[in-house]
């Protein structure tokens, strides 16, 4: 009743091709953005900004990057965290070594650096496919982290490669409170997400999906495999690189190479899978789920322990946390292999008919 496109007639090509063709979607999106930009900063506490909202946005951006590569172009990668590390360290070095470079420009340069590294490690994808490629991307993961630890120039000779992010200042305004940083991250993430949404329905995005579904068939119909695959690696790494720079500058403040571990790559992959492979919205849903789950378990487990009178030591609680995390991931894959985005899609289909089912 409320949510359907009946009566919304498109009279121009522009209207027909717009990003959100249904009016209710547009209203919903504008409301959501209004809440995110205006409502949240008024009411959220400092803890919410720095422990939940900022990491959520940053990981959603990284998951979006991986989703472009894995979900749209079909190239499985296990080195996402390493590309984030490249972004973080590149942003740091641009800020450090180029006098007076605006921070936003160095974020973009960080993304471009990560894109370059991504192309380099994407080259094997022209020869190798499937799980062989997935294992090969582990080379990127280990090699990049090792390089960042061992070449002191990259971290300005700090011990064990720890870098501290410089202050963020844009046009004379210092972004130093968590709320400012949240708004900055939000603006960047919204822009990049819109760009991604546009990109995946363009020629490029369609070429990616053709390659994903069957690369030999795609090359037969005239899609240049090398260009398409490498572009996917470049764009994906760009997103991950920017996410990494934001991770260092807006979330943690100081990072070390070992922080960008294989574990983090897996977490981002989980976000993509749980959220929905090949879905922009799914990256956000997945990031929210994976980030909130440990927090939820932290609160829920002692509660249940108290309920049943079980004496849990803190070690046991952390073990149960890992166990439940693993079990939930398997459970989700079994129950909804297409991810949370699919649930949202089903809900929308239902909403179309609601409340009259015929």
């Amino acid at each position: 009743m409320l949510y359907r496109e009946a009566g919304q007639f498109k009279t121009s090509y522009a209207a027909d091709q717009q990003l959100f063709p249904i009016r209710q979607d547009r209203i919903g999106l504008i409301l959501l953005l209004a809440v995110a930009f205006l409502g949240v900063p008024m009411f959220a506490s400092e803890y919410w900004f720095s422990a939940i909202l900022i990491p959520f946005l940053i990981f959603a951006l990284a998951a979006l990057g991986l989703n472009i590569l894995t979900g749209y172009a079909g190239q499985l990668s296990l080195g996402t965290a390493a590309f984030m590390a490249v972004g973080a360290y590149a942003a740091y070095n641009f800020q450090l070594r180029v006098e007076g470079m605006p921070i936003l420009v160095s974020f973009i340069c960080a993304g471009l650096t990560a894109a370059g590294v991504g192309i380099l490690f994407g080259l094997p994808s022209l020869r190798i496919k499937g799980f062989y490629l997935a294992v090969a991307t582990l080379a990127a993961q280990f090699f990049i982290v090792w390089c960042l630890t061992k070449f002191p120039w990259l971290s300005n000779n700090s011990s064990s490669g720890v870098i501290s992010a410089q202050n963020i200042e844009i046009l004379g305004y210092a972004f130093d409170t968590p709320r400012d940083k949240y708004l900055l991250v939000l603006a960047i993430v919204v822009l990049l997400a819109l760009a991604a949404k546009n990109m995946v329905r363009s020629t490029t995005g369609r070429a990616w999906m053709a390659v994903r579904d069957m690369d030999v068939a795609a090359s037969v119909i005239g899609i240049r495999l090398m260009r398409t695959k490498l572009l996917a690696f470049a764009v994906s790494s760009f997103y991950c690189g920017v996410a990494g720079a934001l991770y260092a500058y807006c979330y943690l403040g100081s990072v070390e190479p070992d922080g960008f571990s294989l574990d983090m790559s897996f977490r981002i992959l989980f976000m993509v899978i749980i959220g929905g492979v090949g879905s922009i919205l799914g990256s956000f849903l997945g990031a929210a789920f994976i980030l909130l789950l440990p927090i939820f378990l932290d609160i829920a487990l002692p509660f249940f322990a108290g309920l049943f009178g079980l004496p849990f030591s803190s070690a046991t609680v952390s073990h149960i946390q890992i166990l439940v995390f693993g079990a939930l991931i398997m459970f989700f894959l079994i129950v909804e292999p297409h991810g949370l985005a699919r649930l949202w899609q089903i809900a929308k289909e239902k909403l179309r008919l609601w409340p009259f089912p015929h």
Partner: protein
Amino acid sequence: MEFFLEVLIGGLLSGVMYALVALGFVLIYKASGVFNFAQGAMVYLAALSVVGIMEWGAPLWLAVILAFAIMTAFGIATEKFVLRKLVNQPPIALFMATIGLTFFIEGLAPMIFGSDPRALDIGIVDEPIPWILDNWNMVISKFDLIAAGVAAVLVTVLALFFQYTRIGRALRAVADDHQAALSIGIPLQHIWAIVWGVAGFVALVAGMMWGARNGVQFALTFTALKALPVLILGGFTSVPGAIVGGLIIGASEKLAEIYIPPVMQDLFGGNFGGIEGWFPYVLALLFLLVRPEGLFGERHIDRV
């Protein structure tokens, strides 16, 4: 030259240890097309259950038998409750499920058997063999040599099992084509249960070897990361590939660790140790550029 040989042999022997873990991957991938990332965690679970049961007062042989029972039960349960529900899903979903399984085991195993690092004594000491030390002046660990022997026996047994038994033939049939195997009356689910049982057994052997060498601790799960380059070098579907790949990776890794950092130090200055974390991967990657299916992998033919 002697030093070079010593490093080479040490590397080859440690490569056999990698191959032990890689074998478990190959078995499951061959029979069910699942890339079982949880193999490393299974190695950990196996070693931990042996140590845990021994702590409860059981002798070694009983602990090994009980651990084998646990691994088999665990494998069958995995097949029944996770993988069977994911039939017809894309391989990436199955792969993700095994990563979930990894977390599950990493939480479950220490909860039952305790998480503090412990030594596992299986009666072999890690010391140089005096006879070789005297005659050739090389340090070759007795333990590594025995581990290599165990791996050789294991591979031979597996090869015979695959080649000559009814179940082995059924396994190979399933590996070739699920549908065809089903249509000639091979019970697919029994076969998968058996495969997971065998993989559990391989994990048990690998777990005892690694556990006896480095102590039973959480780091055992990282043996999977050592086995992955071996796997892509040798090919996912080949048992001999796992062995040959293990030997190549083991030897080149140790040689690189000795000879590359000094060169880099001369070039850039600073300390460049610890390259064995990534060197096997880069080596395997370069190799894949020449042969995309690994050494013995099945050549993949794309049809449109």
